[in-house]
């Protein structure tokens, strides 16, 4: 792809490290259109509301309240804006918080530029992007079979459980498989992999499962 063309997604960068922003901007500049940068929660909300980008590249850790604060605020007025979370040091509960707030995916800052551009395009197209680390977190969060006393009546019990297929997909992603490799390994199409991942994301965001909260609380304690 040459200079950011008409089809390139419009991206806003939100990260408190100026060095990182300029690095991403210079490396991604050819593949996406970076329309703005912000370094904290309040300016980010204002900027996103003004620019209405396709994708917001959002740091999990921001000085003024964390990435999830931005998502929660922006989603109120502009539910169509999509978020891709990224972080350097990921405490699982923070990452899960951002995803539950509505981010469409999570990648680590060690990701290569090509992969990052790819992830942005995918999020812009409405897909979910799971890094191996996020897949691990999600498996962890849904892992332990809830004890009988622990199951809370939920509107949709299906939300509280991953299917075995979804589990398989997540396991492979956690092992570093790409979507394409997952598809080949499981003899399914890439589209099916994507739909599995999206469904996991939906469950993660919508599940009222008591355990997700408890899991996060426990993680923080240990």
């Amino acid at each position, binding site marked *: 792809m040459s200079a950011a063309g008409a089809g390139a997604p419009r991206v806003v960068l939100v990260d408190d490290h100026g060095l990182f922003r300029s690095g991403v901007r210079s490396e991604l500049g050819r593949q996406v259109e970076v329309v703005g940068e912000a370094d904290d929660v309040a300016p980010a909300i204002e900027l996103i509301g003004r620019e209405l980008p396709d994708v917001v590249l959002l740091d999990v850790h921001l000085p003024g309240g964390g990435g999830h604060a931005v998502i929660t605020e922006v989603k109120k007025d502009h539910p169509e804006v999509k978020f891709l979370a990224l972080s350097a040091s990921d405490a699982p509960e923070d990452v899960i918080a951002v995803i539950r707030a509505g981010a469409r995916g999570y990648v680590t800052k060690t990701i290569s530029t090509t992969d990052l551009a790819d992830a942005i395009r995918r999020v812009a197209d409405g897909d979910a992007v799971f890094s191996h680390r996020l897949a691990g977190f999600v498996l962890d969060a849904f892992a332990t079979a809830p004890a009988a006393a622990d199951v809370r009546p939920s509107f949709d019990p299906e939300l509280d459980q991953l299917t075995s297929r979804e589990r398989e997909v997540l396991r492979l992603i*956690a*092992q570093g498989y790409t979507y394409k490799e997952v598809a080949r390994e499981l003899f399914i199409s890439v589209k099916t992999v994507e739909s599995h991942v999206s469904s996991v994301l939906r469950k993660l965001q919508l599940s009222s499962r008591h355990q997700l909260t408890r899991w996060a609380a426990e993680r923080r304690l240990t």
Partner: protein
Amino acid sequence: MQQEPSEPPWPPFRFQDREGRRRHPRRHGHPWQDQRGWQDQPEGDAARPHGPARFLRRGHGDGNPLRRDPEDRIGGGLAAGVGIWRGFSPTTVRIAFVVAALVTQGWGIPIYFVGWLVIPARGSSTSIGAKARHDSQGVALAIALASLLAVFLLLAGVLNDGSIEVYCWPQVVSVACLTLIWRNAPDDEKAGMRRLVEPLESLGGQNRVRRGTKLRFVVSAVLLISGIGVIVSIHGGLQLLRPLGGFVLVAAAIVVLLGPWWLRIARDLLFERQARARAEERADMAARVHDSVLQTLALIQRSADDPQTVVQLARAQERELRSWLFEGRAPGDTEVASFAAGIKEIQRDVEARHGVPVEVVTVGDCPLDEHLSALLAAAREATVNAAKWSGASVISVFAEVEPDKVAVTVRDRGAGFDVDSVPADRKGVAESIRGRMLRHGGEAVVQSTVGEGTKVTLTMARGFASAGQAPADGRQR
């Protein structure tokens, strides 16, 4: 981050002596004393009696004229001055003053104030009284206030049978003296007085009277009045307990009135302690960051032309920092207590020894037992193999602890090999991985395709009970 690497950006926290807390010069061989010299006492402090005796026994007076000592004062420094003059401890003199004030039915207090007025402070030649003589306005005010109190006391005497006025009459003089002192004292003495009356001042502040203050004022007034009432009615009462009750009420009034102020002082102390704790924490953090991160950054700069070393250093540092920040493990702490921690240790060692990044994802965790240690040993072997032979740029290790089993997958996208062509006696895969897993009731599956990479899947059931059927090699590496 733009910090000077050489030193932390925040200065180490230091205690500073609070103003006005200077030591008593007497114990420090003040030059002013040295003029006379201590011929018979080589070191001023050494020969002085210690313990309780110190307060009672008389030392050497300094022979200089009586001067107030503003350095060591509670009120005007009169007691300290007398102490130095006659060679007693100031505390002894103070106690004597209080006793005298009680015995003389309150006359000791105005005498003290008169002394404050007429005795000059050390280092100055004129007394406050000398200055006050020229302060006609102050004299007028003093007379006015004193006569006001006198009138008030007369009225009280008419209404009451006058048992406590005995103590109050001398205070007519005190009020006059205090007024003059207040108007004419040098600034540093005024500051000291202000500190003493600060709480009362805050009560009188016009624009700062809040509801709590008003309430306190009312409550303490009620307590005070009833307390005085009880004390005054001693004459009527016969029991011994009633005066006691009166004192309790008066004390309660004082606590209610001044309690918040004392509380504030206590709170300030607490804040100070907290601030110190925070500062120490920061200093500790700065030291940690300096020891690890900054050193590594320096190393990275030095080996900038060797990408592999740079990556290795950065990864090692990242891991160390992560385990410190999120797992609370000190760098260098290598004790492995759980399965997930064991996997992370494999990651750390392989990256350090072979310089290949290992990406680890763990799901769940459980305590280690003999079998899981064997599983860890097998996983380590598989990871080391991948690092040594595959040529892959990154190795993925995925470990999942499920209720009924534990699984580890070690995967690379490297050269791969033909599984069937490996001689059966080659120890690496055959013994270290497969044999070990089998002995502990587990299973090892090796899949590899030339040119695509290798995947080793290790699974072991949890709670496998039949231990010891084979020589346990769980702990070996």
